[in-house]
């Protein structure tokens, strides 16, 4: 696993997906709020995190149902006006989750839909990243998924760095980790001494 320590990858795997248990599973009752005993019955439909679902699916113990935000209705919305759809609300890891599900999902069109989706939204996003005011957090940021936010911020940071380089040059500054408090103390100290 080339990205074993990647925090976003770990959190993406924490997204819940619905699975259908093909066999009885001992001792997993706690995963199923509807279950009244320690076990999950064969045939039960349960929401479990992706990291667990993925493994159980590869072992053919469960089958995965695609989350509703990859369904036909959302695809139509994307087709109508890609950049207005609030994907971030459906799932912060809309693309990464989809990419992970694509190989094990029964729907062969998922991958190409994800590509279509990003292509539709990318241009508008990049355009805004270069033009909106640098200090405010614009409203449309809420519509973006986590992956898109990262792209957006990368584009915005590059504008910021460019301006910094062009107009004032990189400055030496104290290490941010020291916070602001110490500075005030240091400024006051000479007065305390007298």
């Amino acid at each position, binding site marked *: *696993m*080339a*990205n*074993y*320590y990647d925090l976003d990858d770990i959190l993406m795997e924490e997204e819940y997906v619905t699975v259908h248990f093909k066999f009885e599973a001992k001792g997993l009752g706690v995963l199923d709020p509807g279950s009244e005993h320690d076990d999950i019955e064969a045939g039960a439909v349960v929401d479990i995190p992706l990291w667990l679902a993925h493994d159980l699916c590869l072992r053919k113990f469960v089958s995965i149902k695609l989350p509703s935000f990859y369904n036909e209705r959302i695809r139509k919305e994307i087709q109508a006006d890609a950049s207005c759809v609030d994907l971030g609300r459906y799932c912060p890891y809309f693309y990464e989750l989809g990419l992970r599900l694509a190989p094990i999902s029964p729907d062969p069109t998922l991958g190409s839909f994800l590509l279509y989706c990003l292509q539709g939204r990318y241009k508008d996003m990049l355009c805004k990243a270069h033009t909106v005011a640098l200090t405010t957090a614009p409203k449309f940021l809420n519509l973006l998924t986590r992956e898109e936010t990262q792209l957006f911020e990368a584009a915005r940071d590059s504008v910021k760095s460019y301006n910094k380089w062009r107009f004032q040059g990189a400055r030496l500054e104290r290490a941010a980790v020291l916070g602001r408090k110490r500075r005030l103390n240091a400024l006051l100290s000479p007065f305390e001494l007298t």
Partner: protein
Amino acid sequence: MDDAGPSARRGGNSIPVDDATGAYGASGFVDSLDGLGTEEVASDVVLLRRVWQNEKCAPEILPYDASLVERVREQVQLMEENIEAFATEIKDDLMLSLYRMDVNRTLFLLRSYLRARLSKIERHPIHIIDNQELWDRLSEQEQEYTNKYCEVLAKHFEQTVLIRLPEQYGSMLKQTSLASEENDMITQPQLNTFVCCRSRGAIGSFQLDDKGDESVDLMTNDLYILRYKPIRRLLETDQIELI
């Protein structure tokens, strides 16, 4: 001084005091300007800048250019000695300031180059140790550093986390000794990432995948955004540079 080095041709180890432009160009920053149109003889600093830029942009660690670093360091030392000597003779503060600036900029390149390499080593230390080709790309001092770094890293993981886990799960290379055959926890650079590059010569048609479905016509001085993996051999042979 390495006589074979390009710097010998430039006379980069002395400061021609009567010619500001020449002095400033002695270690290279003006070379790229006055080199335009004429036959380009790259000074060591220009070479270092290219090596530095490639290192900054490539996802994997690149071969260490030991002789170049050594030449640049010797030049910096000479420059510093000369500045020292001239400081008492010349009263021209502006000139001195320019010389110092030149040295400082070269030193910045050097430091930044070595820092970029350390940061790559720290990102994928085990991957580098495990891979002979990558290991050979490090300087002797970098190899020593990598070993020490791995030791400190392993000890920290061991004492903080791994010792607390059941024995079959206590490796920092394998997720578990129960199932996985290979070391499945080692992080690696993403070689399939896109990079911006400039072609240094007319390379012509270049194949971007094994099947031959995708190819690109590389023209002199044109810019391209391509996947790193297929073009890494071109970088090795200096046919392209990353930007």
